[in-house]
């Protein structure tokens, strides 16, 4: 057996080499200061909080509209809030945390676009179709990194940076180039604040989406999402729980978490889609087993 006749043999080594090269680079890129001597407490022992909601409480209406738009997938509201933040940037009207909310709002748009691309292509809002992923994500990254430089002690901006890198991932190659950067940023956020529920959610997303050779572990993702769902009632944690249970054909659990998501944001289109999927599949499963609920 040699690598010319069996090219598949060398693939794991290539992946390992790429990871070995890119991880330290990514850590350096986000200024990660992870102390390996101080591991975070086990997930179950942490009491999580939601820094985005907490920061929004001290912000103005425009910033709060960003957060609401992201949660509801309300694209017009989100775009209007982003436009206001961009308009007041550099003026006397700007607020100290504008770039944090701006970066959050813009990456939120990319995540909503991803949902429509994957699940509801026909219903994609036209303004999202026009967004060019790479240039929009790069501009968002600049905003976030500018904020991170100006606010090195901010507990949540590295999480936002991690989400931007994650949003740039498309396919295996994207995973190999952007994945380690996203991972490093999320780890930096968790090192700074192990109780950051949104950063734990991002870690769960990596465990959910990554292939197993790159650290993917759907069972671990489920534990992380459940903890986030329980502690901070975050809509994305509920949506991921609904997805995992749908994928495992455990439809009553999927329906429960879709309902939990809709309790947070009743008009969220992903929640509505997952609920109708779960209801239909659950009914079909019951009729196949010859029962009725």
């Amino acid at each position, binding site marked *: 057996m040699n690598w010319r006749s069996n090219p598949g043999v060398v693939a794991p080594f290539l992946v390992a080499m790429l990871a070995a090269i890119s991880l330290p680079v990514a850590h350096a890129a986000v200024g990660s200061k992870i102390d390996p001597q101080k591991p975070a407490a086990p997930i179950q022992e942490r009491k999580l909080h939601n820094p985005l909601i907490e920061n929004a409480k001290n912000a103005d209406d425009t910033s709060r509209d960003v957060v609401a738009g992201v949660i509801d997938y309300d694209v017009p509201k989100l775009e209007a809030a982003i436009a206001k933040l961009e308009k007041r940037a550099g003026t006397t009207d700007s607020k100290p945390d504008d770039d944090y909310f701006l970066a959050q709002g813009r990456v939120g748009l990319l995540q909503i676009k991803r949902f429509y691309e994957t699940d509801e292509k026909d219903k994609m809002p036209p303004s999202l179709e026009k967004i060019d992923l790479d240039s929009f994500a790069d501009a968002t990254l600049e905003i976030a990194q500018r904020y991170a430089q100006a606010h090195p002690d901010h507990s949540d901006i590295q999480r936002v940076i991690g989400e931007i890198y994650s949003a740039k991932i498309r396919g295996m190659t994207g995973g190999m180039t952007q994945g380690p950067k996203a991972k490093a940023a999320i780890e930096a956020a968790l090192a700074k604040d192990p109780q950051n529920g949104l950063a734990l959610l991002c870690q769960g997303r990596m465990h959910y989406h990554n292939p197993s050779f790159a650290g993917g572990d759907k069972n671990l993702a489920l534990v992380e999402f*459940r903890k986030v769902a329980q502690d901070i009632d975050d809509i994305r944690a509920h949506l991921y729980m609904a997805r995992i249970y749908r994928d495992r054909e*455990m439809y*009553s*659990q999927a329906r*429960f978490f879709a309902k939990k998501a809709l309790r947070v944001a009743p008009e969220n289109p992903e929640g509505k889609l997952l609920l109708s999927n779960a209801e239909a599949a659950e009914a079909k499963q019951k009729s196949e*087993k010859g029962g*009725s*609920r």
Partner: protein
Amino acid sequence: MIARIPTSLRRSARISVTLATLALSGLGAFGCASHDRLLEDDVKVTEEEVLAAGSAKSPDVTNHLHHILDHRGDYDTSIVVAALVAIGERRDTSSIQPISRLGSDENEEIRWHCVLALKAIGGPEATAALERFADDKSVLVRDEVAARN
């Protein structure tokens, strides 16, 4: 000796071994869960193993599902939920009491699945037990009680 075997034959053998390994690991990973750990009341039992018990023929399985409900604190929430799903599938009226005892559980997900299990069991006794959940503090639980299907 091995060198004398034609290359094409060796390649075929290698492919066959690979496919067999993949098939065996696939069987373990997808849907062929046994419920041995359930029968041993092992707290490390998985969701899949508990759910597999839903359609198991042995009546003894129901007692082990009740054990999970009665020792709720020893098991992860996901396992208790899976036990309630399996109990709902078995439709055994002996499960009504153990389900009812979870009516005051702190966890909304568990109480919601209690409602589902009672509805699946059906009959006057289960309907009476369902009444306990009609005033639940969670709107999701109350809605599920009120929903006909």
